[in-house]
């Protein structure tokens, strides 16, 4: 295989389509932070303004009489305190200084203390089942217990690392996280489909007599080409991410790559630094892309039509959604693992009610699919790719 590697690389590198796609995606990834800055984002401060309005609204919804009695008064006091805490945190975020505001620390306290107190208050309100408007409170005001606990873990993670709350959703680190999530989604499938959709097609249609009869198994050529495309895709993607990050540093606050990000482990949410989260996303994306590439280059050997191959590969991104709409068989169902972000952050586990949908299963699932592809293509590559009669079965005596 080594003796052919250089020439296989030349075929790919000299193809105008490869060059245009590589440059196009590099420009897109490299300028992502600039593009992202153009979009409307909701500042956390504005989000809190909404929460503050809700906190005010709840007083109008609960009948005055329900606040009578010891429990009622306690609930009223807690709701009032919550409104104050939200207001204070909104102010802190608005000042864009960090967890507190210099000079008036005694007045506004700090974001984490306020947030933790708010979360603990909400946990207390969850306990007030005897309160007459408890159901209303739960329905229109209270976040779920799981969400409250998640908030507490988030504040603890910030505190443990000595970090400030991020007021700027356009901070470089925040854009980078968004971009990492984007490049491992449908964009990855599009990149793969366009780049590798004709991996073998050209050889079989335009260069048939030069590319046939080599004493090198198709299986090895298949793996070689897939790895080469994989290298191109991730070189372009990683360079693009780096450029975009550096560019964003020129225009925005840096943020921090230590910022805690939620990850779903063993049936519960934990927070890990964002650089670790991004490594997990990219690592998973690399594994997923390799499997999709093997499938794409293999399909190009069978189909010999780039448009059909592209269609099938992009459909592969959406097809799992159809499978997922059926009652799930097991948490090992491969269709769940196309959505890397959903698996990592636990959204998939929550959506399908399967606590077993955890990220560590992803490499095992992908290795299983890879094995399946190896077995399938071992059979497929036994067919003869004739010049004009398509694939023909060998008659082995």
């Amino acid at each position: 295989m080594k003796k052919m590697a250089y020439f296989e690389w030349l075929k790919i590198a000299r193809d105008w389509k490869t060059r245009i796609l590589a440059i196009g995606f590099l420009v897109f990834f490299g300028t992502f932070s600039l593009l992202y800055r153009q979009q409307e984002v909701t500042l956390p401060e504005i989000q809190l303004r909404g929460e503050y309005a809700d906190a005010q609204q709840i007083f109008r919804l609960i009948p005055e009489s329900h606040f009578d009695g010891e429990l009622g008064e306690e609930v009223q006091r807690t709701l009032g305190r919550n409104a104050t805490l939200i207001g204070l945190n909104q102010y802190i975020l608005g000042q864009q200084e960090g967890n507190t505001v210099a000079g008036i620390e005694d007045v506004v306290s700090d974001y984490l203390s306020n947030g933790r107190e708010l979360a603990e208050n909400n946990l207390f309100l969850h306990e007030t089942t005897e309160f007459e408007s408890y159901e209303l409170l739960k329905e229109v005001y209270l976040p779920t217990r799981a969400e409250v606990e998640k908030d507490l873990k988030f504040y603890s993670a910030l505190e443990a690392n000595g970090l400030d709350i991020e007021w700027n959703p356009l901070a470089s680190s925040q854009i980078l996280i968004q971009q990492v999530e984007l490049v491992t989604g449908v964009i990855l499938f599009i990149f793969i489909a366009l780049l590798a959709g004709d991996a073998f097609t050209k050889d079989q249609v335009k260069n048939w007599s030069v590319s046939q009869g080599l004493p090198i198994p198709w299986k090895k050529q298949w793996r070689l080409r897939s790895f080469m495309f994989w290298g191109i895709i991730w070189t372009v993607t990683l360079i693009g991410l780096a450029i975009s990050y550096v560019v964003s540093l020129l225009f925005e606050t840096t943020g921090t790559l230590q910022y805690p990000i939620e990850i779903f482990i063993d049936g519960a949410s934990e927070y890990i630094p964002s650089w670790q989260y991004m490594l997990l996303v990219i690592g998973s994306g690399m594994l997923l892309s390799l499997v999709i590439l093997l499938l794409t280059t293999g399909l190009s050997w069978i189909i010999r039509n780039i448009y059909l191959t592209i269609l099938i590969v992009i459909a592969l991104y959406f097809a799992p959604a159809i499978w997922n709409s059926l009652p799930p068989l097991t948490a090992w169902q491969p269709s769940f693992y196309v959505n890397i972000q959903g698996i990592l952050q636990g959204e998939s586990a929550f959506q399908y009610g399967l606590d077993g949908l955890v990220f560590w299963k992803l490499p095992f699932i992908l290795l299983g699919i890879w094995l399946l592809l190896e077995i399938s293509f071992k059979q497929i590559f036994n067919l003869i790719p004739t010049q004009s009669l398509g694939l023909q079965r060998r008659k082995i005596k």
Partner: protein
Amino acid sequence: MTLTVKDMTVAYGERTVLEKISFTIENGTIIGLVAPNGTGKTTLFNAIMRFIPIKSGEIKIDETVYSASESDVLALHEKITFFPNQADLYDNFSGTEHIKMYAKVWSGREQEVEQIIDRLQMRDYVDRVVGTYSLGMRQRLCFAMMVAANTPIMFMDEVMNGLDPENVSLVSDILIDLRKSGKIIIVASHLLDNLDEYADKVFFLKDRILYRVNDHHQPKPDYFRIVCTQAQAGTLEAADLLPKETIHLGNSVLCIPIEGLNEAQQMALYQHIRKLEDVEIKIGPLGTSEYYSHIYGLEIHSFDRGQAAHAEQPDK
């Protein structure tokens, strides 16, 4: 090394293209493979290379049978190379890169690439991308790739296609050198006279079978080969001088076997022919082109060089 094909039958669906083809070729042999277009020359190559499924038959190199299994096909492909179609070359590769690719994949003798380039007189264009080449340049490159691969068995399909006489001669010389180094080479070509210059045997395919084999190392009968008009041929036939084995090629060539005639009969026939006006006569064995015309019933030796048309033009 010996290449043996035994009872090979190839069919596209219900249509049989080759039927029970059998032959054995020893090393150091050049075989000319001739037949009109669409008769199965390329199919024969494709079948031996296992580029198409074969219905029945056996392919052997020395005493080893190569089945259609993946491992056997790969082993077969290490020993045989197939002449690339010049239209299939990579337009964005240079000639040198093509030659190096074949050298690296098969022989591993990349150091000989420069020598091959010089031998085939490709130096002035070989480093340009193939997209800029003429048909002849591409054809020479394809041949250079085969030489670089240096496999013991080579299938040269339409190797002389698009080459000028000088390059035909150059390629022919190299084919002769390759034979000296012990290669088994099958050359499919329509340059029939050229084939006679180097081929050890010529295979004729017709009606799906290996119809005839001309062995150039065996003694061949002599003929009077006469280029004449149909009327002149009729005169000779009327004189009852022609043996019944006389071959009529197309509308203008008579091939008269003289082996069965004694010296007096040969002289009588010769004198009769000499009485005819404007007749060309050659004495010797027939070449591949004559057998080709005879086997496939072609009128390739047109005797009408336009005299009639000139004669009809009014004087100016």
